[in-house]
């Protein structure tokens, strides 16, 4: 961390990053430009600047020039170094003595912030923490101390420091932590007020008047979240006909089509959730369950401890409508085209399953899918998606190495980074696979679970071996709690064991490569 303030109190990271071993190094105060000119010393560089850094004894032109110089230095660092860089918005709020001058000061602060936003837009490895928003949320009088700013070079009170620390933790999590994939929702008193089986379709509250407006807004929030790639599921104890009728007859934002999986029955919710996990081929730890009933939440938590559960309490509208934004696992820095199309992809998958049930053999089924692969190599346009896949793929992932976007850019400069796209007669599944080869070793080999069971795995390996040359190529399997399905992947596809350690980690070398039962066309793309 570096800043124009003491960064140690802000950088005391804790529970928010507990799954990683984090050590924080603090540069001397006022060394921002020196730090930016030097090579990156860590995976993440947090730069904390206060308004004094830009505005102290400066006229507007000078303040903007200072910000331009700062942004140029950050941009140069971001283009040169693989580290994630986190910067922050202006924290201060100008005093009002002359109204129009106050407006001009606000305008200047907005212009300064706008330059930071532009910086983040142009450089994928730059994140922005909204220090101004944090101060506003707490209240400037409570969050800032001019006494401390002048006496200690620390403008914040402890409450603001704690909030900033959480925001920086979140900024790091947005880049490196796997995002949750599914929100499973109860219906009665969660998607609408009342119990449809008792109150009737016309008796449930989901209109524009309070309390129906709470549910209506919650539904809109869920739709917005679904557009960022989160799948929705419905798990409710009800008669199916009542729920269907509610969605058909009542005017509300959510439609049944929005749900990737629906379970309306009187069985245990944990059983229904476990079935949905199987149906969607997703891990339970990628799921969130929301219900108004503490008993149901307890039941699910006890039976499926990997599922995160949250209570929706419409009587507390602020908490209820702040619920989704408060769940760390739903946050991410950016979304890809694949994320946006996720709901459609699962709809396509349901159609595939229908076809699978109609065809007589697996071979016929695979042929009827008319699968095609596209293979890209070192494509800058795919950096975001490739990084995302390395960070969230757990099951078909031979080494489970996590890479930031900046890491991927660096790997593309020195090695081979393949991105694999899958299309079939039902639609485009987007980029579903990544293979990274460096120093004649397959460093990462991973496929999204949605793409498995189609013979794609061996075809991708075959393509990679052809492109980089099989002779002298090595590969590795690193076991984790979740990737057991890949333990024998290289054994079954023309690689032989060189050595195996006591934990099951195995080093292989190329021994002919895969034998393909069904060749899938692979098109190379730029």
């Amino acid at each position, binding site marked *: 961390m570096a800043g124009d303030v*003491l960064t*140690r*109190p802000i950088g*005391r990271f804790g529970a928010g990053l507990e799954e990683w071993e984090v050590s924080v190094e603090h540069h001397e105060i006022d060394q921002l430009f020196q730090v930016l000119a030097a090579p990156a010393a860590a995976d993440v560089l947090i730069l904390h600047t206060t308004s004094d850094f830009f505005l102290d004894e400066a006229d507007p032109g000078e303040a903007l020039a200072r910000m331009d110089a700062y942004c140029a230095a950050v941009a140069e660092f971001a283009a040169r170094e693989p580290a994630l860089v986190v910067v922050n918005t202006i924290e201060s709020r100008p005093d009002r003595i002359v109204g129009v001058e106050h407006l001009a000061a606000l305008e200047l602060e907005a212009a300064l912030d706008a330059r930071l936003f532009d910086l983040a837009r142009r450089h994928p490895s730059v994140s922005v923490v909204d220090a101004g928003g944090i101060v506003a949320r707490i209240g400037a*009088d*409570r969050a800032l*101390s001019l*006494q*401390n700013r002048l*006496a*200690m070079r*620390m403008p*914040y*009170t*402890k*409450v603001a*420091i704690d909030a900033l620390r959480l925001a920086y933790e979140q900024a790091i999590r947005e880049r490196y932590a796997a995002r949750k994939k599914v929100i499973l929702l109860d219906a009665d008193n969660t998607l609408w007020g009342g119990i449809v089986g008792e109150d009737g379709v016309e008796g449930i509250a989901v209109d524009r008047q309070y309390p129906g407006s709470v549910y209506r807004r919650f539904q809109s929030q869920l739709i917005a979240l679904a557009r960022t790639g989160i799948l929705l599921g419905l798990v409710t104890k009800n008669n199916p006909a009542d729920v269907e009728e509610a969605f058909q007859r009542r005017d509300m934002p959510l439609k049944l089509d929005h749900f990737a999986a629906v379970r309306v029955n009187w069985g245990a919710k944990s059983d229904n959730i476990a079935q949905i996990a199987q149906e969607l081929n997703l891990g339970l730890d990628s799921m969130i369950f929301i219900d108004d009933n503490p008993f149901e939440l307890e039941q699910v938590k006890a039976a499926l401890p990997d599922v995160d559960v949250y209570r929706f309490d419409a009587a507390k509208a602020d908490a209820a409508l702040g619920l989704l934004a408060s769940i760390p696992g739903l946050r991410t820095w950016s979304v890809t085209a694949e994320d946006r199309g996720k709901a459609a992809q699962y709809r396509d998958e349901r159609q595939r399953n229908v076809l699978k049930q109609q065809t007589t053999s697996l071979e016929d089924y695979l042929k009827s899918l008319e699968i095609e692969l596209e293979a890209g190599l070192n494509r800058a346009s795919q950096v975001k998606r490739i990084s995302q896949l390395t960070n969230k793929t757990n099951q078909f992932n031979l080494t489970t190495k996590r890479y930031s976007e900046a890491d991927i850019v660096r790997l593309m400069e020195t090695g081979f980074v393949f991105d694999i796209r899958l299309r079939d007669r039902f639609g485009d599944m987007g980029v579903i696979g990544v293979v990274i080869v460096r120093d004649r070793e397959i460093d990462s080999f991973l496929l999204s679970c949605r793409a498995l069971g189609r013979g794609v795995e061996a075809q991708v390996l075959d393509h990679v071996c052809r492109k980089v040359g099989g002779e002298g190529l090595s590969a590795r399997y690193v076991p984790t709690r979740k990737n057991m399905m890949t333990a024998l992947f290289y054994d079954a596809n023309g690689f032989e064991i060189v050595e195996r350690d006591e934990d099951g980690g195995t080093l292989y070398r190329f021994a002919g490569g895969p034998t393909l039962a069904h060749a899938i066309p692979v098109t190379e793309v730029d």
Partner: protein
Amino acid sequence: MDGLEDRLKEALRRVNEHVQSPELEQVTPDLDIFDAVDSMAIVDLLLETEAMLEEQSGAYVPLADETIFDASKSPLKRWSDWVAFVERRRADAD
């Protein structure tokens, strides 16, 4: 002093979780915090103590002044002076 000293000890203990200075483990009236830690730990202690006071009274009481970092005048040179200093600042704020 309505438990103020105990709360100041608690604030010091929290700061020392990060600083880990053996000299701060035993609080005596003569304890010299100023020489036991660096200036960043002093900032930490002021912030922690301010937060503790705010939690207790609901009012923000700024503690930093020109004496805090002055080796000859700092109330942090003696624990008993520190307690009296905070008590005074709190009374001034009322």
